[in-house]
């Protein structure tokens, strides 16, 4: 673990540190000041015991590499697959759950144990290697989605699961809530305002009968997620998706919503349009995270809830404020 | 002073808490001391830990309905009802004089002397006519004619209907319905002889063990030694099925083995054809039928042919009547009843309905809350072709 020791020394010595994985999420959160020391976490498998359904990897491990290793044993750990280059640490720090969240739950439910480097270069471990654990506070969940502001994730233990025996995409013209009511726990309901793309996983007979019962037409694969210069990820209550869709009619954008979840992936060709999309989301009491582009757009658009409490936690973990400064707009509560 | 509780029973509680949701007083108060686990802990503290028997302890024991719902829920089968009755027996001599006088009046003077009870019932019926008895007492409409008309026994009886004390005075019509139904099956019902009055159940709950034993012996002596003894009061039936343990004699055990709840006995006979009516009947399980006699299914069996039966979704939680409990602990009793009434109304839905209750105490308690309550015997009788 010479690499980790060097990493710890670098972090301890730096004034400001920006954590870089594959660089797929540079635009998420506020900009880190130029001049910050870039650090990278090593990649590699640490241990994998298929019968325990747990795997430990270093934070810099690409998601695709992890997926390949698990596939050899018929298992998977469903992290957001949209950027195959993305690192495990980066996906977790970004709190990205992927499009199968409706059935499989959010990324935070995958992380069992985390090791991270603090601003002064110490290694802290939280959680535990077993699939069930309530020993001490839930640091793993706290680190998921923290955008690297509490610690540099160096190693994680994740919960794996058997790969589905079979999976199949199909389409319905009905809105996602209607489709969901006809199905037992679909894996994904991707809705673009015209059609609902339904991912079903499991036994082929069950999939066929569910598709028939719900009147779905089989298609070859998933819908195309919005690919534009300016992209954002909105979070609204799942019940507000219909109303949001009506508002987005007025905005020059393409979008796909995850039915039953409330995540909406929005892409636009102009920064203004993404701002308009954000206004539509906020009108439905949601918020939109800037994911890519739109440099002049506020990263979050809304004030962070429980701001003081979050800032106290930031102070507790990174008193000198050197980890990914600016990513989350903490207030300084300590002198 | 010590509680004289069997120690092995007392320590058999592992405090798992599975009894808590089955305890009506815990459900309405949320207090540990109002739960079976809390009460056992208090008994243990007194008997094993040397804690004093103070007002707080006595109040904790008195607040129990002895519905024995906790016994059914207990995976270790802690005999809670017997522990509670034994604890109360120890407390009995320490009761305040006023309460002991009231108990003397009720338990020693009136209940065991059926003639006196009937005479008082006449007075009560007059008072009722003069509107001197508030409805909230839940007293059924007392009928002079019913009080004047004795029950008929058949010659050469092959089964006996136990008539009891208060029930014979206040709800004799239930007995009459029971006799009619029994005859409809082809049976020849007989009645207890002299002194076949009070069964002693209330005395036992109050901790008056000696009187309870004396009454039990009288009841046994009032009935011939052969033939089923049918009881249309679930509380009495539960006590009479326990005479074997109470008196600890072979004769008492043999007697207890002959005791049947009315519905239990009827369900064992060839089914009576009933006229189906559209009436919705919400089945209320008296604790002493469900938790002690385990005979609640029989009520459904005998009513199913004639009525739309509806179940209450509350695991048979007590209604709060608890014998004399509604008099001694009025506020808790009312709180427990309010919960029950809500559950009954929720189960019944919007239309009219009747509550079937196999215990006179429950019936009066629920009627006092404005519900229409009938005994299964009355419902079966009405549905006879």
């Amino acid at each position: 673990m010479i690499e980790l020791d060097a990493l710890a020394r670098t972090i301890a010595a730096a004034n400001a540190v920006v954590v870089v994985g594959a660089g797929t999420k540079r635009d998420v959160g506020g900009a880190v000041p130029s001049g910050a020391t870039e650090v990278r976490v090593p990649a590699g498998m640490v241990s994998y015991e298929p019968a325990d359904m747990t795997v430990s990897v270093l934070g810099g491990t690409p998601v695709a590499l992890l997926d390949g290793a698990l596939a050899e044993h018929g298992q998977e750990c469903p992290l957001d697959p949209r950027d195959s280059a993305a690192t495990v640490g980066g996906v977790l720090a970004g709190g990205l759950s992927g499009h199968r969240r409706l059935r499989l739950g959010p990324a935070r439910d995958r992380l069992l144990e985390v090791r991270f480097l603090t601003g002064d270069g110490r290694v802290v471990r939280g959680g535990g290697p077993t699939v069930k654990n309530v020993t001490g506070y839930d640091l793993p969940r706290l680190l998921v989605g923290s955008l690297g502001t509490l610690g540099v994730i160096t190693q994680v233990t994740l919960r794996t699961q058997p790969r589905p025996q079979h999976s199949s995409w199909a389409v319905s013209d009905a809105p996602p809530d209607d489709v969901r009511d006809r199905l037992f726990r679909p894996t994904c309901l991707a809705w673009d305002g015209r059609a609902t793309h339904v991912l079903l996983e499991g036994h082929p007979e069950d999939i066929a009968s569910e598709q028939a019962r719900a009147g779905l037409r089989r298609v070859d694969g998933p819908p195309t997620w919005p690919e534009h210069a300016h992209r954002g990820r909105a979070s609204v209550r799942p019940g507000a998706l219909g109303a949001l869709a009506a508002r987005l009619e007025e905005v020059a954008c393409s979008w796909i919503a995850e039915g039953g979840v409330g995540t909406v992936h929005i892409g636009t060709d102009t920064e203004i349009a993404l701002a308009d999309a954000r206004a539509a989301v906020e009108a439905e009491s949601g918020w939109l995270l800037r994911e890519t582009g739109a440099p002049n757009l506020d990263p979050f658009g809304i004030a962070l809830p429980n701001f003081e409490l979050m800032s106290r936690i930031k102070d507790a973990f990174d008193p000198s404020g050197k980890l990914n400064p600016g990513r989350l707009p903490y207030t300084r509560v300590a002198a | 002073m010590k509680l004289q509780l069997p120690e092995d029973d007392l320590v058999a509680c592992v405090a798992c808490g599975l009894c808590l949701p089955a305890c009506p007083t815990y459900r309405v108060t949320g207090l540990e001391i109002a739960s079976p686990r809390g009460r056992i802990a208090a008994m243990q503290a007194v008997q094993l830990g040397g804690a004093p028997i103070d007002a707080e302890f006595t109040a904790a024991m008195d607040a129990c309905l002895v519905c024995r719902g906790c016994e059914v829920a207990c995976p270790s089968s802690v005999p809670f009802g017997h522990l509670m009755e034994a604890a109360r027996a120890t407390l009995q001599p320490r009761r305040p004089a006023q309460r002991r006088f009231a108990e003397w009046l009720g338990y020693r003077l009136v209940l065991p002397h059926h003639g006196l009870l009937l005479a008082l019932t006449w007075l009560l019926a007059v008072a009722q006519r003069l509107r001197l008895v508030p409805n909230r007492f839940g007293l059924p409409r007392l009928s002079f004619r019913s009080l004047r008309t004795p029950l008929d026994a058949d010659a050469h009886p092959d089964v006996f209907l136990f008539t009891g004390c208060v029930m014979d005075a206040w709800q004799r019509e239930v007995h009459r319905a029971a006799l009619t139904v029994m005859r409809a099956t082809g049976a020849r019902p007989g009645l207890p002889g002299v002194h076949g009055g009070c069964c002693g159940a209330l005395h036992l709950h109050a901790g008056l063990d000696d009187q309870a034993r004396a009454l039990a012996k009288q009841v046994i002596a009032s009935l011939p030694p052969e033939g089923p003894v049918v009881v249309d009061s679930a509380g009495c039936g539960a006590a009479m099925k326990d005479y074997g343990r109470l008196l600890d004699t072979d004769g008492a055990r043999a007697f207890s083995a002959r005791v049947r709840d009315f519905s239990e006995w009827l369900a064992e006979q060839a089914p009576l054809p009933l006229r189906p009516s559209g009436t919705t009947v919400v089945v209320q399980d008296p604790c002493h039928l469900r938790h002690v006699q385990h005979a609640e299914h029989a009520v459904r069996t005998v009513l199913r042919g004639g009525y739309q039966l509806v179940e209450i979704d509350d695991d048979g939680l007590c209604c709060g009547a608890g014998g004399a409990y509604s008099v001694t602990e009025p506020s808790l009793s009312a709180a427990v009843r309010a919960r029950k009434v809500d559950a009954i109304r929720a189960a019944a839905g919007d239309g009219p309905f009747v509550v079937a209750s196999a215990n006179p105490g429950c019936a009066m308690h629920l009627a006092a809350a404005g519900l229409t309550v009938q005994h299964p015997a009355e419902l079966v009788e009405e549905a006879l072709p």
Partner: protein
Amino acid sequence: MNRVIEVDVEARVAWVEPGVLNLDLSRMVTHLGLHYAPDPSSQQACTIGGNVATNAGGPHCLAAGVTSSHILALDIVLADGSVARLGGLEPDVPGLDLRGCFVGSEGTMGIATRIAVRLQPNPPCVRTLLLDFMSIDAAAATVSAIIAAGIVPSALEMMDARITRAVEDYVRAGYPRDAEAVLLAELDGLPAGVEAAVAVVDRVGREHGARTVRVAADAAERALLWKGRKSAFGAIARIAPDYYLHDAVVPRTRLVEVLHQVYEIAAAHELIVVNVFHAGDGNLHPILVFDARDPGIWDRVHAAGDAIVRACVAAGGVLSGEHGIGLEKRDLMPLVFNVDDLDAQARLRDAFDPDGRANPQKVLPRGSRCGETMRVPEGAWV
């Protein structure tokens, strides 16, 4: 605070107060085709608020996940009297996951006053299997083999001989009284997948020496089998009047080895131990059974309990899977966490409750913070 405030069927969310009983919630929504998934064995007596405090588990957490996966939002009161809403009904909230932090914090970060829980649709098909074995090893090996075969049952529970007999005395569900161990496996979902999985469990079980594999015929039989499993702790008094229950998790692949150690440790301390546990998760519940009236018994019980926990940790396990740390295991925390780990946890707690007023002295051992002095502040919530 024991009301269900709102059930949103379309969103499959219920807002409840913390005093609502776990089982009452599921019963209240079952006619809507929904249930609340975490089902601790004490579910008829335990509250959602308590479940949140301990991040409770239960048999069906094997597939469904523990409490934290089912809590969407919380209204809490912090130790300084301020209120906050953690999490939300949107899939993500900006910033840190305070909701995830609060769940399982054992009351040391504040008090939840309203809780939004996720409700799950009831599965269209459920099969419950009872497998019985003539050795603990065979049952434990079956657990690993089922998982290795690519099946994650919705629940996979084990009971040893003594507890099986005690339970059967109570429920009369037909648990075999002469088995050395039984496994209760449940599979749910859509019919073809369930039947295929049942066939795999049946085959794997028989390959590993299951004498019989009984599939519950109907919902009533299934309920009776589960009643037995969930009454196990309460039935202990049929063996002896007192028990000391442990809760530790080991990697599933170490189950056989650790179970052997548990029985050996109990024997070395002249104690009876029974095992009834969430085998699929590797979540052990060794129960030391004894009569507290025996002189000197507590010393042996504590020594054996301590040895069992250490054996689990040595096998790569953790101190608690679902019951929590509290005071009992607080001083064992250094077995699994070093100074820096504990310091980070102490700082997190301080961020919520700088004066240490909420459940003081729970979870973290003395000296978790550098140079701290422990005290219970005046007016603290204990």
